[in-house]
């Protein structure tokens, strides 16, 4: 990170490793959240996926951020199953595609990272047909991406912008507690889904927090 906040492949690899650590540490909590309104496997599924991701990157680390994010996305789709595999997998693949469209770039600017996260969010919304307020990972990801965009436009330091994104993701996840689920298996519970934090939003907050942790190093 020579010029303040340029992000290279190693930065993205560090983000993914930090995400994997957070998911492993938060595994029980994610599964408990899922037990309340889903089928009690979100933590173990996502942990299985990120463990496979870390292993895949150790075998051969891709040489651009775009290629790395694409490997992350593809591995999550292949290993996780359920709804979270395709949704997280698509998010990372769309990010990789957005960065890949910039050419064979080895470093990414904060603005480009933000645009990539916007592309990832668009992919998740499209695949899951979910909007904010449906009690899904979109309720954490959308405000995070908005906060990041706003902070950068207001001229915040990239680290502060990442901090704002992580805080918005955590607030977004907490804001799912009073919501009634309208997507996924939790939606079958109707009113009974109220009062529980959405496990997908909770894991999204972990991953955005990991981004800030790595950016702040």
């Amino acid at each position, binding site marked *: 990170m020579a010029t303040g906040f340029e992000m290279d492949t190693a930065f993205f690899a560090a983000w993914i490793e930090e995400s994997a650590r957070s998911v492993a540490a938060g595994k029980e909590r994610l599964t408990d959240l899922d*037990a309340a309104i889903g*089928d*009690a*496997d979100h933590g*173990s*599924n996502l942990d299985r996926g990120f463990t496979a991701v870390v292993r895949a990157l150790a075998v051969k680390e891709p040489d651009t951020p775009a290629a790395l994010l694409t490997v992350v996305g593809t591995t999550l*789709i*292949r*290993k*996780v*199953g*359920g*709804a*979270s*595999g*395709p*949704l997280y*997998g698509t998010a990372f693949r769309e990010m990789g595609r957005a960065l890949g469209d910039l050419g064979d770039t080895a470093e990414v600017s904060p603005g480009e990272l933000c645009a990539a996260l916007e592309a990832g969010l668009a992919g998740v919304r499209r*695949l*899951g047909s979910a909007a904010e307020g449906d009690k899904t990972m979109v309720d954490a990801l959308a405000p995070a991406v908005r906060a990041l965009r706003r902070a950068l436009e207001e001229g915040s330091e990239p680290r502060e912008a990442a901090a704002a994104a992580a805080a918005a993701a955590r607030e977004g996840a907490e804001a799912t507690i009073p919501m*009634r689920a*309208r*997507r*996924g*298996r939790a*939606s*079958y*519970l*109707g009113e*009974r889904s109220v009062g529980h934090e959405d496990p997908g939003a909770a894991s999204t907050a972990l991953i955005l927090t990991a981004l800030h942790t790595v950016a702040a190093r």
Partner: protein
Amino acid sequence: MKKLINGVESVVPDALRGIAAAHPGLRVDVENQIVFRDSGPRPGKVGLVSGGGSGHEPLHAGFVGYGMLDAACPGEIFTSPVPDQMIEATTAVDGGAGVLHIVKNYTGDVLNFQLAAELSAEEGVEVASVLVDDDVAVRDSLHTAGRRGTGATVFVEKIAGAAAESGAPLAEVARVAGTVNARSRSFGVALSACTTPAAGRPTFALGDTEVELGIGIHGEPGRARSAMRPAAELVRVAMDALHEDLPLSGDVLVMVNGMGATPLIELYVAFAEVSAYLAEKGVTAARSLVGDYVTSLDMQGFSITVCLLDDELVRLWDAPVETPALRWGR
């Protein structure tokens, strides 16, 4: 919790090894978790692939064989399989006429099959999909993921399987599958919750004198809780819900399905009430199944699925089938 297992992590592969040993007509890829027909793809025949979480046995592996599925992809317990499994199954069963994916309407199943269909198409396999969404307990599809796919999956797999076996092209097999789904409705009742091996405790608490009405097949609670009542009354609740959603008439195919821990004698008690209900409405149960077909581990309870028949569907239902869990006429 007492379960006849070796360990929580190995339940699915251990069961697949059992399926392989018990059924020489099947070829089981334990590592990739795919159950195939032993005979391989027949040139010109449309291939049928289904799959979903484990814990619903005999669905789907029990319906692999002549006249029904070409391959089944079991996921972890109550978790959808991953696209890799589905892609491998799809390309392996393609006899050049394309492959139909039979998908139950759960977000995970839908997304993974969608990705698998796209990736299989990139590998040159023509793929069509039918979404099974027969559960009338989920009403408000604007505010939910839509109706769940439950018992009608068995009807779709059997009837589409017969169409494929007769040499019908992919579009035709897909059309028949869609017709069966459109004419089928289900409703389930739980007398007890199930226990997934990983969780080790029942998925919801139900008192000794309570039942859950409108359950799905993943141990999730239903749309209402009610006092335990005689079979005739529980069947009436279910049949009224079906009839209200899709008026019953003419000849119907009926399945009274056990959820895994209800004895056959009780399912026959329920079937007698179903039959009486239909007679009241001037409807004939022309074909029927009574037994465990789409289960939810060790849940006590039952579901009723009804399909409005026509001549084409009767002919395809009666066509020979030879699978571990369904066989006749061959």
